[in-house]
C-alpha cells in the first residue's frame, strides 16, 4: 500500500480521497475502495452517535451541510474543469461541517460547507489549495460569527467503550491509508504540550487533556490534519508540521483561545503548504478534491 502512493506523492502512504480511482483490495473486511473508507467511517460514527446519544439536534442541519458541500463541489468542479468531480471528499467536508458546527440557526450549516468548498477553488498556490477546506470553513465561521456559531463540544456519551471504539476505528482507517504517523505524532505532541501547559498554569493535567476525549478532536485528528491534499509530502515533514501545530495550539491555549486546534492548523498548515509549494515545480492541475 505504501508503494502505491509513493510514486504519486513522494511520501509514504496512500493519498485519499483523490480524483484517480485506487484499486480496492480483494477480500477481507476492507475490500473496498480506499476513497470510501473515511466517508463510511465518519457516517457510521455520526449515525451511531446520534441514534445512541442524540448528538445532532436534528438531521436537517447535517443534511443541509452535506447537500450544499456536494452540490457546490459538483457545480464548481464542472464549470472550472469541464468534468464532474468525485463527490467523496465533498461529502466528508459536508458531514464534517454538519457535525462540527453548532448553531440554533440554519444558515451557518449552509455557509460552512459553501465556504469550505469555495476555498479549495479560490485559495490556491501553483494549482494546489493550501487549506483543508473544513478547517478553513469552520475557522472562518467561528471568527466571523461568534455570537451564533460554536463548535461541537459534546461527548459521545458517558461510557468509555464508544470512545474506545471510535479511536480504534479511526486508527485503523488512517493506518489503512498510510496516514497513521501523522495522527500518532500529533497525539503524542498534544499530550507532551499539555504537561507543559499544566505546569505553567497550575491547571490539573487531566483538565488540560480533557478536550482530546471528545469527538471534535477525533474528527480533527483523523480527518483534518491527515488530509492528503493539504499536508506536505514528506513523511518526516508531515510529522514535523503536526508537532508545530500542537506547539502553536499550546501557545493559543495559553492565550485561552477555545478553538486553538483549528486556528493552529489554519496558520501552521497553510504556511507549511506555501513553503513547500513555492519551493517545488508547478504541479499539474487537477480536481481540488480533499476533505
Amino acid at each position: 500500500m505504501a508503494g502505491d502512493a509513493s510514486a504519486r506523492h513522494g511520501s509514504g502512504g496512500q493519498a485519499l480521497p483523490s480524483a484517480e480511482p485506487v484499486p480496492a483490495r480483494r477480500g477481507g473486511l476492507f475490500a473496498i475502495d480506499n476513497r470510501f473508507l473515511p466517508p463510511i467511517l465518519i457516517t457510521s460514527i455520526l449515525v451511531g452517535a446520534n441514534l445512541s446519544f442524540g448528538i445532532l439536534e436534528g438531521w436537517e442541519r447535517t443534511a443541509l451541510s452535506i447537500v450544499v458541500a456536494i452540490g457546490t463541489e459538483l457545480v464548481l468542479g464542472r464549470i472550472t474543469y469541464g468534468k464532474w468531480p468525485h463527490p467523496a471528499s465533498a461529502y466528508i467536508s459536508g458531514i464534517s461541517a454538519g457535525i462540527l458546527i453548532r448553531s440554533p440557526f440554519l444558515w451557518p450549516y449552509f455557509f460552512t460547507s459553501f465556504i469550505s468548498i469555495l476555498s479549495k477553488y479560490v485559495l490556491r498556490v501553483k494549482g494546489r489549495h493550501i487549506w483543508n477546506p473544513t478547517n478553513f470553513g469552520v475557522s472562518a465561521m467561528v471568527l466571523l460569527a461568534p455570537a451564533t456559531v460554536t463548535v461541537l463540544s459534546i461527548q459521545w456519551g458517558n461510557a468509555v467503550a464508544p470512545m474506545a471504539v471510535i479511536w480504534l476505528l479511526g486508527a485503523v482507517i488512517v493506518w489503512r491509508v498510510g496516514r497513521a504517523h501523522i495522527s500518532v505524532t500529533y497525539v503524542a505532541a498534544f499530550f507532551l504540550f499539555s504537561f507543559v501547559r499544566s505546569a505553567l498554569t497550575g491547571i490539573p493535567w487531566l483538565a488540560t487533556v480533557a478536550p482530546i476525549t471528545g469527538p471534535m478532536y477525533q474528527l480533527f485528528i483523523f480527518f483534518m490534519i491527515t488530509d492528503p491534499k493539504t499536508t506536505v509530502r514528506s513523511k518526516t515533514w508531515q510529522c514535523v508540521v503536526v508537532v508545530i501545530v500542537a506547539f502553536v495550539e499550546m501557545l493559543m491555549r495559553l492565550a485561552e483561545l477555545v478553538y486553538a486546534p483549528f486556528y493552529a492548523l489554519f496558520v501552521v498548515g497553510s504556511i507549511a503548504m506555501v513553503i513547500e509549494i513555492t519551493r517545488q515545480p508547478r504541479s499539474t492541475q487537477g480536481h481540488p478534491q480533499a476533505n
Partner: protein
Amino acid sequence: MPRQRIAWFVWTFLLVASLAAVRALNQTAVASLPDDEGVSDLRFGFQLAESAKRRGVDFVHQVPSFDSKLEHIMPQVASTGAAVAVADFDKDGWQDFYVTNSGEGSLNRLYRNKGDGTFADVAQSVGLADVNRRDTGVSMGAVWGDYDNDGFDDLFLFRYGQPQLFHNEGGKRFVAAGTGLPRWVNANAATWLDYDRDGRLDLFLAGYWPDDVDLWNLKTTRIMPESFEYANNGGRKYLLRNRGDGAFEDVTAAMGITSRRWTLAVTAVDLQGTGYPGLFLANDYGVSEMFSNRDGRRFEDVAMETGVGRAPKSGMNAALGDIFNDGRLSIYKTNISEPGQLVQGNDLWVPKAAGAGLPAFENLATTLGVDLGGWSWGAQFGDLNNDGAQDIYLVNGYISAGERSSYWYDFSVIAVGHSSIIGDAANWPAMKGRSLSGYQRKRVWINDGFGNFTDVAQAVGATDTNDGRAVALADLRNTGALDVIVANQRGPLLIYENRVAPERHWIQFELEGTKSNRSAIGARVELHWNGHVQAQQVTAASGFSAQNQRWLHYGLGSSRTVDRVVIRWPSGAAQTIASPSVDIRHHVKEPDGR
C-alpha cells in the same frame, strides 16, 4: 485558460460575499434596540422603574459556603438559591411574596403587601425566617399551595437539605407540618400539582445533586455531573401524594418516575387536555424530560416522542405561555449562550396542530427571536404592556466577579471532557475570582401578537446587570399591570414597577376550587375576545425557582369587552362566563362544590 480564470474570479467574489454575509447575519442575530429609544414615552406601551428600596424591600441574597474541597469552584457550586414566590398569604387582596436566602444563618423574608405601595418583612414574626442552618440545609426555593384546602396558602420550602412544609394558620403564623417528606434532598425545583385529581394538592420535588451528597462534608470530590450532556447521576425525584391527613406518601417509583437527571426547573402541564397534569423538567447537563400522566395511575417519559428531549443542553427554566393566542400552550426553556464559546440557544417548544394524542413540539425560539438570552435563567410569560399578547421577561448572568476576567476558557476545556475527568471536582480548574458570563443585560421580549418578539429591555428600563435567577410577575399595586420581581444571586431583590399605557384594558381571574383543589392549580382558562383566544393555566412553580401570582392576568389592548371566558377546572368541570367586565379582577368559584 480564460475559462478557469473567469471562474476563479467568480468563485472569489462568491467567497468574499459569503464571508461578508456570515458577518452580517451574525450581527443581525444579536442586534437589539438602541439604549436610548423611548425611555419615557411609553413607546412600547409600558415602562419599568426599579423601586424595591422605596417600597421597603432591602434584601441582598447571600450564598452558602460548602466543603473547602470545593473552594476553587465555590461560585459555581453555590450558584443558586435566590428565589421568589408570590401569594396573598393573608387573604387581604394584596399580593405578598416570599424570598429565600441561602447563607448559613441567613434569614428568608416574607414581604407582606401593606396595600399602600410598600412592604413589610414579617417572616420572623410568622415563623418563616430562620430556616437556613447547617443541620437542616439552606434554602433554594419555595412554592405556595393550599394543601389542606382551608383557604390559606401554605408554603413548601425546598433546600439543599431537609424539605419543609409550613402550614398557614389563618394568615397569622406558619407552623411546621406534613409527614412523610424525604429527610434530605439537594433540590432546586418543586411544584404543587393534583396528579390524581382527588382534589388535594400533591408535591413534586426534584433533586439536583445526589441525595447522599452532603455539600458541607464531602467524602469524595467525585460529586460533579458525569457528563456535560448525558448526566444521569444527579438527584432523584419525589412524587409525594397528599393523603389528606397531613401525611405525604412517596409514590415516585410506583408512578414510574426514575429520573436521576440534574433538574433545575419543573412545571406541571396538561399535555393532552385530559385534566391529568403531566410534568416538564428542565434539566442541566442533559435533555429535558416530559412526563405524561396516564390518568393518575402512571407517568411516562415522552420527551423523545414529543420532540422536547432530543438535544442535550443546560435547561434552567420551565414556563408556559400562549404566544400565538390560539389556545396552545408553549413551553419556554432557557439554556446557555455565550458568543464564541457555547451557543445552545433557548428553546421555545410550540405544540404542533391540536388533536388527539400526544402533541409533537417544534422549537421556534430561533424563528421567533427568543433564543439568544446569554446565560439564561428564569423567564416568565406575561402581558407586560396589556396589548393582548404574552411577552417574555428573562433574567440571566451566571457569575459576576472580576470584571475584566473570564473563566470561560477553563470552563470550556473541562466541559468537553470524558466523564472520568469531568466527574471529579478536583479536576476542575480554579476560578480564581474570574467571571463566567457575568454582568449580562436582561431580555424583555415583547410579542407583536403574531409570535414575533423584540427585545426592549434597555428601552423600557430593565437595565440591571445582576446575576438574575428567579423572576415572578404579580400585580402588586392592584392597578391591572404586571409588576416584575427579580431575585438575584448574591445580589439585591428588585421590584420593577410597571407603568402601562392607560388606554389599554385588562382583566384578571382569581379562581377558587371547591371539588378541585382550593388553589385551583391546574385549572385552564381560555379568554375569548375580539376574535382572539388566549389560554393560561393556573400553575404553582413557573420559571426558575419562582412562582407568579395565581391571579391570571390578560391584557386586552383597546378592546373594552370580552366575549366569554371558558374555565376547565382540575376536577373536570367546565364553566363558561359570558361577557365578564373588563378592568377588574373576577373572583370565580368552582360551581357545584362542597
